[in-house]
C-alpha cells in the first residue's frame, strides 16, 4: 500500500464543504485535509456532533480518507489572524480548540489532528511545551501531527523532534510535514526531511515554494523536486495522506486542483520510471518514449532526468544515448539533445555527432535544442556559428542559443552581417535578433 493523494479544504474556502468534497473526489483525489473553520464544520457550533456524524457518512460515501487541520485564520479571534496560539498568554483557548478537534477527528475516523506552534520567540519554548502537554493529556487519544511552520517558534523539523524528545517521546505526538516549507526554510531538501521524520510522519502537505519565501505555490512554480519528494515518501513506506496545501488559491480552486493532480501523477510516474531505470537500465527503451504521454508539458525535463539516471547505472551510456536518439521521435530526440547538457560530457564525440545530426534537420525545436550548453562546450566553432545562422534563417529566436554573448566572435558577426545584406538586397526584413547581435558588437 502506498500513500493517498488528497486536497486541503482551505484551498476551497469559497465552496460549501459538501461541494468542495464532491469536486475533490470527482477529480480523483482519495483523501482530504479538512481545515475546521467557521463555515467548514465549525467546532463551536451547538450541533457539531450531529454535523460531524453527517460528514463522516459523506466522506465514507465519497471514499475520502481524512486528516483534520487546525490552521483556520479567524476562527478563534475575528481580529487577529491565527490568534491565540500555543505560545500566547491565553493559550488555553487554543488548547480547548485542539481538544475539540481531537474529538472531531475521532468521530470522523481521521488519521490525525495537525497543529502548529505559533509566532513568538525562543523564550516561549517552555510555555509551548506545557501547552502541547496539555493538549496531549486532554480529550481522546488521537495522533497529533506537529507541523514546523516558517516564522513560528517551531519552524524546523529539528525543533519539532526536540520538543517531542523533551516531552518524553509521547506515542501520540507525531510530525506533519509541509514539503514546501522544507524548500523555504529547512537546511535540507524535502526528501531528506521526509527520511529524517521517518515513521513519526503522520501527515504530509504538498505544495511548491521558493527558498526563503513562505508563499504556497502550485507545483512547478517553485524549486521543490516533486518526483524525488514522492519517491522519498514511498521509500520510507509512508501510507498516510499527502494533501495539496494551497490556501491562497481558493478563487480558482477546481482548476488549480486539476493542475495539481496532473502534476502529482506525472511526478509519480517519473519517480517510478527513474527507480525502474536505476534497477534496470534497459527499461529506458520503453520509458523514454512513454514520457510524452505520461508527463505531457514537462516531458523534456522528465526525459533529461531519465537520461541522468540511465547514465549513472548503464554500462554503456554512449551506446544507449545514441540508440535513443536514432530510434527517437522528434520529441525524444529533443529530450536526448537537452540531456546532453547533463550527461553529454561522458562522451563528447558521440554527443557532438547527435548535435550535428540535429543541426542538419529542418525541425525548429531540434535545431533549438541542439544549441544548448553541451554545444557551447564541445561543438566545433564553425558548426556552432552555422547553427546560430540557421536559427536566423528559420526564425528561431537567438535566446535559445546558450552562451551567445560570450561566444559570438568576429567570424559569426561577419556571417550575420552578410546574411543581413542579402536580406536587404532581396527587399526582405532583417530579423530583429540579427540586428541586435550586430548592434551589440558595434
Amino acid at each position, binding site marked *: 500500500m502506498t500513500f493517498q493523494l488528497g486536497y486541503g479544504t482551505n484551498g476551497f474556502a469559497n465552496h460549501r464543504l459538501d461541494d468542495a468534497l464532491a469536486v475533490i473526489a470527482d477529480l480523483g483525489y482519495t483523501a482530504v485535509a479538512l481545515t475546521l473553520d467557521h463555515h467548514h464544520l465549525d467546532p463551536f457550533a451547538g450541533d457539531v456532533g450531529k454535523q460531524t456524524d453527517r460528514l463522516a457518512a459523506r466522506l465514507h460515501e465519497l471514499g475520502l480518507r481524512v486528516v483534520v487541520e487546525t490552521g483556520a485564520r479567524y476562527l478563534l479571534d475575528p481580529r487577529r489572524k491565527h490568534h491565540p496560539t500555543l505560545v500566547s498568554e491565553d493559550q488555553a483557548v487554543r488548547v480547548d480548540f485542539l481538544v475539540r478537534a481531537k474529538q472531531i477527528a475521532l468521530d470522523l475516523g481521521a488519521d490525525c489532528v495537525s497543529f502548529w506552534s505559533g509566532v513568538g520567540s525562543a523564550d516561549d519554548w517552555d510555555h509551548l511545551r506545557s501547552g502541547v502537554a496539555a493538549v496531549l493529556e486532554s480529550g481522546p487519544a488521537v495522533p497529533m501531527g506537529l507541523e514546523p511552520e516558517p516564522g513560528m517558534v517551531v519552524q524546523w523539523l529539528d525543533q519539532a523532534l526536540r520538543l517531542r524528545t523533551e516531552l518524553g517521546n509521547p506515542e501520540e505526538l507525531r510530525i506533519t510535514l509541509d514539503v514546501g516549507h522544507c524548500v523555504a526554510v529547512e537546511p535540507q531538501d524535502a526528501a531528506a526531511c521526509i527520511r529524517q521524520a521517518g515513521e513519526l510522519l503522520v501527515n504530509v502537505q504538498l505544495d511548491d515554494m521558493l527558498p526563503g519565501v513562505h508563499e504556497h505555490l502550485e507545483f512547478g512554480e517553485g524549486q521543490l523536486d516533486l518526483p524525488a519528494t514522492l519517491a522519498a515518501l514511498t521509500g520510507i513506506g509512508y501510507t498516510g495522506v499527502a494533501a495539496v496545501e494551497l490556501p491562497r488559491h481558493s478563487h480558482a480552486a477546481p482548476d488549480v486542483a486539476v493542475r495539481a493532480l496532473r502534476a502529482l501523477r506525472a511526478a509519480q510516474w517519473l519517480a517510478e520510471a527513474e527507480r525502474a531505470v536505476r534497477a534496470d537500465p534497459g527499461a529506458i527503451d520503453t520509458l523514454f518514449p512513454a514520457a*510524452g504521454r505520461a508527463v505531457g508539458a514537462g516531458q523534456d525535463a522528465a526525459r533529461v532526468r531519465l537520461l541522468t539516471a540511465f547514465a549513472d547505472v548503464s554500462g554503456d551510456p554512449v551506446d544507449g544515448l545514441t540508440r535513443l536518439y536514432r530510434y527517437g521521435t*522528434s520529441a525524444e530526440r529533443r529530450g536526448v539533445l537537452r540531456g546532453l547538457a547533463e550527461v553529454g560530457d561522458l562522451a563528447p564525440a558521440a554527443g557532438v555527432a547527435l548535435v550535428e545530426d540535429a543541426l542538419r534537420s529542418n525541425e525548429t*525545436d531540434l535545431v533549438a535544442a541542439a544549441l544548448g550548453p553541451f554545444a557551447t562546450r564541445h561543438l566545433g566553432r564553425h558548426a556552432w556559428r552555422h547553427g546560430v545562422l540557421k536559427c536566423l534563417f528559420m526564425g*528561431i*529566436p537567438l535566446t535559445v542559443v546558450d552562451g551567445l554573448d560570450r561566444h559570438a566572435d568576429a567570424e559569426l558577426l561577419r556571417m550575420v552581417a552578410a546574411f543581413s545584406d542579402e536580406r536587404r538586397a532581396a527587399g526582405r526584413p532583417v530579423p530583429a535578433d540579427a540586428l541586435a547581435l550586430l548592434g551589440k558588437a558595434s
Partner: protein
Amino acid sequence: MRIFDPHIHMTSRTTDDYEAMRDAGVRALVEPAFWLGQPRTSVGSFVDYFDSLLGWERFRAAQFGIAHHCALALNPKEANDPRCTEVLDVLPRYLAKDGVVAVGEVGYDSMTPEEDDAFARQLELALRHDLPVLVHTPHRDKQEGTKRTLDVVRESGLAPHRVLVDHLNEITVKMVADAGCWMGFSVYPDTKMDEARMVALLAEYGTERMLVNSAADWGRSDPLKTHKTGLAMLDAGFGESEVDTVLWHNPVEFYGQSGRLALEPAAAGVVDAATGSSVLRGER
C-alpha cells in the same frame, strides 16, 4: 465542417495540399504506413520512413494547424519481400511511440502465405501494444480478400470494435457491418468510392462505425474528398451533426481507443506565429 481524415498519405503531398485541407476544415489526420510506389529493398528504408511519419511529417502538419498521427506496419505488398519482412522485429520499438494510434495498413494484397504470416503477427503486436488496427482490403479479388480478412481478425482474438476494415464498397460493406468492425471508405476521383455512392451507402447503413477518408497518396487522388463527401451528405439531406459524426466523431472514437490521440497539434516549432516569441522563452 471539422474534418479528421482517418487515412491519408501526406508524405506524398505538397504544402498546397496542407493549406487547402486546413481551409476545408481538416484539423486532424492519420497517416498509415504503406507502399511507396517504388519498392523498398531494406529494413533501413522502413525505419527512415517510420521516423519521417513520427518526425518531419508531424512537424510539417503542425505548421498548418493539423494534428498528425500515424499507423505503423509492414504493408501487405512488401510482406512478400524477404528483404523487408525483418522490419517486423523493429516494429515493437516504434509501436510504443507517441503519435502512433494504430497498427496499419495490414491485410492482404495477393493473399499469399507470406501475407498470412505478416498479417497474423501484426495483429498479435496490436494486441500486445493495446492499439487498434487499420486493415487494407485488396484491390484484386476484394470480396474474397475481405472475407478472409474477417476470418483472420476473428481468430486473432482482437475485439471487432478495435478493427477498421478499409477501402470497402457496395459489395464488401455488409459482411464488415455484420462482423462488428468499423467500416472505412476511400473516396477517389475515379477508382474506389465516389461521393454520390458514398452518400447512398450512408443512407442505407447509417452513420454508426462509418469512416470516410481520402486515402490521398502519390497516385491520382484528392485530399479534399472528405470535405466533398461532407458537402454531398448535406446536399442529400443529412444534418450537420451526422456529417460531424462521420467526419470527426467516428475517427476520434476509433483511434481514441489507442489513448494517444492529441487533437491539439504540437506547437509548430519554437516560434509562436502570433506573437513572434519563442515558446521556449521563460525556460531559461
